[in-house]
């Protein structure tokens, strides 16, 4: 069933560009001060983390939305090549959000498809949208001229299995249940998201006429959430065996 579904998506989407108007929502990352209460960290580690913070601050993400789907991905930027620690800094920067490489949400089938990298292997996972157990609050504030409403939820990290509280601000007047990465499920577009190590904020919304939602989905590597959980469990077991 999964294979047929992926095939259907591929036929519909992969080789064809989406012929509809897009709305591009841009987000920026605001890393939290994770070194604040950690005095025992050596100077070298501190410098590496600070380098990662600077990389995270420069990161920009884009959420492309049309009438049938949304696609979240990182905006590729040219970063100075004279940084010998570029890969390390990028790796640290990624930890502030832990966003997947790209996340697609198909509205009519209520499925999300995302690329997740684990130990240099990228898996394409397809599952129903994650339930964050969102609770709406009466708190409201203005974001980019829109009236945004607060919601609180709980997120379970895929890799560590730990749960933590998250906070989101969404716009009711934009009735698209989408947001950064896998964070969605509210009755409006998520424009601000408070995660464990960073806050993600909308920076701009652009209306575009370009039909430029291109997907790169590898059918052979598509797995469901149960299979992903099994892969992670096996890896964790191996890591524990090595460390013991």
């Amino acid at each position, binding site marked *: 069933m999964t294979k047929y579904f992926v095939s259907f998506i591929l036929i519909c989407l992969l080789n064809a560009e989406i012929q509809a108007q897009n*709305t591009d929502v841009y987000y920026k990352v605001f890393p939290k001060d994770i070194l604040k209460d950690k005095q025992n960290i050596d100077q070298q580690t501190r410098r590496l983390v600070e380098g990662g913070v600077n990389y995270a601050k420069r990161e920009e993400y884009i959420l492309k939305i049309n009438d049938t789907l949304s696609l979240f991905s990182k905006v590729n930027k040219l970063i100075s090549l004279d940084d010998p620690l570029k890969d390390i800094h990028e790796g640290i920067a990624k930890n502030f959000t832990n966003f997947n490489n790209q996340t697609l949400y198909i*509205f009519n089938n209520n499925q999300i498809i995302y690329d997740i990298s684990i130990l240099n292997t990228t898996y394409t996972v397809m599952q129903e949208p994650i339930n964050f157990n969102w609770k*709406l609050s009466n708190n409201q504030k203005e974001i980019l001229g829109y009236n945004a409403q607060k919601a609180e939820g709980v997120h379970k990290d895929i890799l560590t299995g730990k749960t933590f509280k998250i906070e989101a601000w969404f716009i*009711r007047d934009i*009735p698209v249940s989408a947001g950064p990465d896998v964070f969605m499920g509210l009755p409006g577009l998520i424009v601000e998201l408070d995660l464990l190590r960073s806050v993600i904020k909308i920076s701009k919304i652009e209306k575009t006429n370009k039909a430029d939602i291109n997907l790169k989905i590898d059918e052979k590597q598509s797995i469901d959430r149960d299979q992903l959980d099994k892969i992670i469990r096996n890896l964790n077991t191996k890591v524990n065996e090595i460390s013991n």
Partner: protein
Amino acid sequence: MKFKIIIYSFLNSYLKIAVFFLFPIISFSQTHQLTGKTQDSLQNPVPNTNIIATPLTQEDFKITFAISSLEGEYKLKLENNILYQIAITHLGYKKITDTITLTSDKVKNYTLQESTETLEEVLIKAEMAVIVKEDTITYRTDQFKTRDEGRPT
């Protein structure tokens, strides 16, 4: 005998206290389910429709929401005898506003009327200087800045 009286007296008091505390919880935390379908004018299910219930009479109660399933089905848990405003929104359909007070479980289907409004138009509308919302008109003052206001004094 004396021991029995003490036990009886203790249980009697305990029961009274328990009833005193439990009764308000039981009577005020009663909820009912509002269920139904969101459908278009041809009675086809409209999935991913937002159904938001905002309590109008008491601020203590939380706003709740549901997003309809692929079959257009939704389920909301609402407090007993509390007036709620129900807002039903979906991109490409006109917004529906309803009010409801539940004293028992209820089934209610909502038929959405198609709208030609696209996401682009929704965004443009949100950026307009004048926002008309039901019985109120809000003027966005930031849209009315004159050139003089921007000049340094």
